[in-house]
């Protein structure tokens, strides 16, 4: 029984991390209509910043991580997203694909293929014991941080002027611009918030997921792929549905890897086929609800003239 509770708690924590990444990707999609495949490389850059500064104080190291990731997101916006603003969504997706590979290969050339071990705050990886239940502190912290970020962002989007402008721009950017919303300012703020969330994930991920303790050039790539898929499956048009999509994928991955047996000779019978199982579910969901699992209105699938 307690075993199942632990698995479920871990799954919720993983879902929270994926949900955070989904917020980062969904925010930028909202204002730019751009699916950022290079999002994981922001996390990778942050993780390298942390891993290379482990001998200085934790606060300084985390501050540096945020600085690096924010600078990199801003550079991405200025150098790539801005010139591509009127390109088709697929051109933009392929372009971020290229940026992702560019950053990965730079990391590979600069830091090598052998990973660096990263533990940001060792105290957080210790377990908390309640009766027979052992939960690591980081699991609880992750869930709380994700909930906090989501709540803060909801307040920001509904209570502040720039947040309202951001929502307006994501619903209808042209009308919003006609009504005096400064597109570049709104986009820059969205890109920066998205970058800050990537930096946060870079701090949490190596502690929360045991196999992510090693920082390599393809760090967070697998997470990005699953989150991207989750965001589209959930419904990329709204931040809430996108976040729910990301969370669901993380929860599913966590729960399935906990409950599936570790070996089996046929596909889908063991946890090595976890990816297959998740992606098959994704295909089924996309076929049944192409506009998103959590979106309310059923718009016609056929494009109107």
């Amino acid at each position, binding site marked *: 029984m307690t075993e199942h509770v632990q698995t479920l708690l871990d799954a919720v924590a993983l879902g929270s991390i994926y949900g955070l990444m989904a917020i980062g990707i969904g925010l930028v999609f909202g204002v730019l209509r751009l699916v950022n495949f290079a999002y994981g490389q922001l996390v990778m850059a942050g993780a390298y910043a942390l891993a290379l500064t482990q001998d200085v104080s934790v606060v300084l190291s985390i501050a540096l991580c945020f600085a690096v990731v924010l600078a990199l997101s801003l550079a991405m916006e200025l150098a790539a997203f801005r010139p591509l603003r009127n390109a088709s969504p697929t051109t933009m997706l392929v372009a971020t694909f290229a940026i992702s590979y560019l950053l990965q290969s730079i990391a590979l050339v600069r830091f090598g293929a052998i990973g660096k071990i990263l533990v940001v705050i060792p105290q957080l990886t210790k377990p908390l014991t309640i009766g027979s239940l052992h939960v690591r502190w980081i699991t609880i912290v992750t869930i709380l941080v994700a909930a906090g970020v989501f709540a803060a962002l909801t307040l920001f989007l509904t209570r502040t002027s720039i947040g309202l402008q951001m929502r307006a721009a994501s619903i209808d950017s042209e009308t919003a611009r006609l009504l005096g919303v400064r597109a570049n300012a709104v986009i820059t703020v969205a890109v920066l918030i998205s970058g800050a969330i990537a930096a946060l994930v870079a701090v949490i991920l190596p502690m929360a997921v045991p196999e992510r303790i090693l920082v390599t050039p393809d760090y967070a790539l697998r997470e990005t*792929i699953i989150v991207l898929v989750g965001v589209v499956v959930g419904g990329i048009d709204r931040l809430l549905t996108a976040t729910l999509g990301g969370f669901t994928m993380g929860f599913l991955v966590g729960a399935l890897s906990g409950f599936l047996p570790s070996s089996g000779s046929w596909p889908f019978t063991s946890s090595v086929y976890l990816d297959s199982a998740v*992606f098959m579910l994704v295909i089924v969901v996309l076929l049944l609800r192409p506009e998103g699992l959590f979106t309310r209105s059923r718009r016609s699938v056929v494009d109107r003239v």
Partner: protein
Amino acid sequence: MRRGDLVQLLGPIGLVVLVGIIGSLGFVSPDRQVEILGALVSVAIVVSLYVFVGNSGVVSFGHVSFVAVGAFAAGVMTIPVTLKPTITPGLFSLLARHSLGNVPSLVLAALVGGVFALLVGIPLMRLSGLSAGIATFAVLGVTHNILGNWTKIGPGPLTLTTIPQTTGMLQGTLGAVGVVLVAFAYQRSRFGRKLRAAREDPAAARAAGIDIHRERLWAFALSGTLCGFAGGLFVHQAGTLQAGDVYLDLTFLTLAMLVVGGVGSLWGAVVGALVVSALGSFLLDAENGDVGFVNDLLGKPLWGGSRLVGVAAFMALVLVLLPSGLTNGREFGLPRLPRIRRPVRGSAS
């Protein structure tokens, strides 16, 4: 065919044949020959991808799955029967007890790729836009995961070795030319024209009675068949194969080649594949210190790993500066001479 059409076909074919001839010349070093052969195989894969992506306008991130099943089918079935128990011990007995020759294995690869694409395409071609892209990506994920783990149909997490390296310069050139010919025939056919019409204006095409779903499905299946065949060429060139060889990196590289050349034209697919391959070999030479002016400029060879950075940076640059690619989505044409204006006699053209 009119003369202009012939020129459109001769451009890509001439370029591929030229590359093949250069590769067969006596003074070309064996290393360089391997690179040229790799470029020809890339042309085959990218043109196969173009048959669907270029004609339909729907980006697919899943086409490497058809390359992968083709490569695994051709690889597993050409290993000598006596070696199979050591290389892939878990195989189904039917697969373990038989082996095929070179050409039958290529046919098998094409068949497997085509059937797989058809089965996948029947449900998936109903989707469009971002959902279609993500769904094809999910297909790639499933294919990679199963090929990389299921030992009854292949090596699983291990590497397939001792595959006969039968893709020589002649076969590579012929293979690439064959794929280009099929792609050209398709895009000039009734089916290709219908699909291109649907790409330009879905609503008008539908109003004209075109069944977009069906046309996309045909293109997807044809494209999958060609990808499977190209996968066969790929595996017979490499000689070894593991699931990671035909996954994200190859997807990125082939999409990059197609987009760099220009998604909209066959000429663009061929040019993109060759230009990116050439850039890759040039940077590799520069890393090894074989390029004089780079050595002079830097005082040392290019940093190790520059090839990866260079190709990715080049692709990002082309995308940002020329979103419709080097060929701007146009087919090959000879430069036109300035025409002398003459009074039109009789009917035009």
